[in-house]
């Protein structure tokens, strides 16, 4: 099963509030990761956003799951600025994942 979440439908053109993104992640992304083959986050129609929003949406996911999540999660319809924000959130999540693994070793 492929699960798709549509950011524009949920947050409009310019989402920027990290607390909203986090709440959305907990209820609309986290639960589907274990039951879906793949998950697509669709940013079509989103004109711009900021680090607060994208980090709250993604960093924790990658911190928790690490690189394996990239096999399952993809992004659609992202303008270049949004791609930079997403890649940075992925990278920050990976850094935190490595830190978490180092601590537990």
């Amino acid at each position, binding site marked *: 099963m492929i699960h798709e979440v549509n950011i524009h439908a949920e947050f409009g053109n310019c989402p*920027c509030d990290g607390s909203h993104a986090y709440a959305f992640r907990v209820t609309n992304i986290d639960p589907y990761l274990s039951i879906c083959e793949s998950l697509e986050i669709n940013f079509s129609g989103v*004109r711009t956003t*900021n680090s607060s929003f994208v980090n709250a949406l993604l960093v924790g996911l990658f911190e928790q799951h690490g*690189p394996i999540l990239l096999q399952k999660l993809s992004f659609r319809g992202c303008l270049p600025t949004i*791609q930079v924000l997403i890649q940075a959130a992925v990278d920050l999540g990976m850094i935190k994942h490595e830190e978490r693994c180092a601590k537990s070793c």
Partner: protein
Amino acid sequence: MHSSMLEIPEYINGEGLIPFLESLAEYAEKPCVEINFSRLKRISPASMASIAAFVAKRRKKRLETLAIGTENCKIINYLRRMNLMRLCEWEMGEESFIRHDPAGSFLPLEPIHEVEVISNRIAACIAPGGDEYAHMNAGLYDAAFYLISEIANNVKQHSYGEGYVTLQMAKKNGFVKVAIADGGCGIPTSLIDAGLKWTAGLSDEDIIEQALVARVTSKGAPNNEGVGLTLTSQIVQLMGGSWLIASKGGRVLRLQNSDLVKKAFACGNCFPGTLVALTFKRSEASDFDQKLHKAKEINNLLQSVHNRAIFRP
């Protein structure tokens, strides 16, 4: 009640800003303050936002703040148009002046309620048409939205809605001046109250400097990574600009092509909240996505080529 008079000098823009912030810090706790506007000729967005934050903080503490000498002030109509007199509750009722269309030149002082709404309005003001991605102002729109929304998010979380924002576009040299100020507890208090051990023994200006380091946050995970202020200041530098943060007992200033300068307010006085003032070149914002990438790279927030996210059209 005995009142103290804060005399505003002729110029509180440019080099007059810091001495004026010192005055606000000196008078912040006085029981009753009369602000004398009679000599004022030039004011910057940063000074204007600071006055609004000063009054808001005092109002919260039930300290009286009056405006005097306004009948002699040469720029009183400008101050009215910029909403200063109304937001400080010095003038109420119907407006007796004509409002100009601000598109592309200025945004009057506004309280920060909805971050998305205000960030959008500012971006649309300085980058008309930029809400369309193919438009030539799209980069400037992205830059303005990003910078304002990141700082305004912080203001909202720390000051509970008592923040103000304003901006001016200098047509002569193409610089955009943005100021956001709030009458909240200040960055140092916020970080100290969060129980962060590294703040022990540091001055307020040292704490502000540390708050600019990536991943330093008082708000904590999971919905905050502490990169907002870091990237905002970095992006402004990459756009040929300068910035100033004044908060509680300290201030940190970075002028274009200069080292960072940090200083305490005189006599242990405290700025009544936080001021973030940014100046950047309009022309440097067109490739905002590249500037954002560079800012993240400089602050070690990007990894190498591994772990690339998959983007589909």
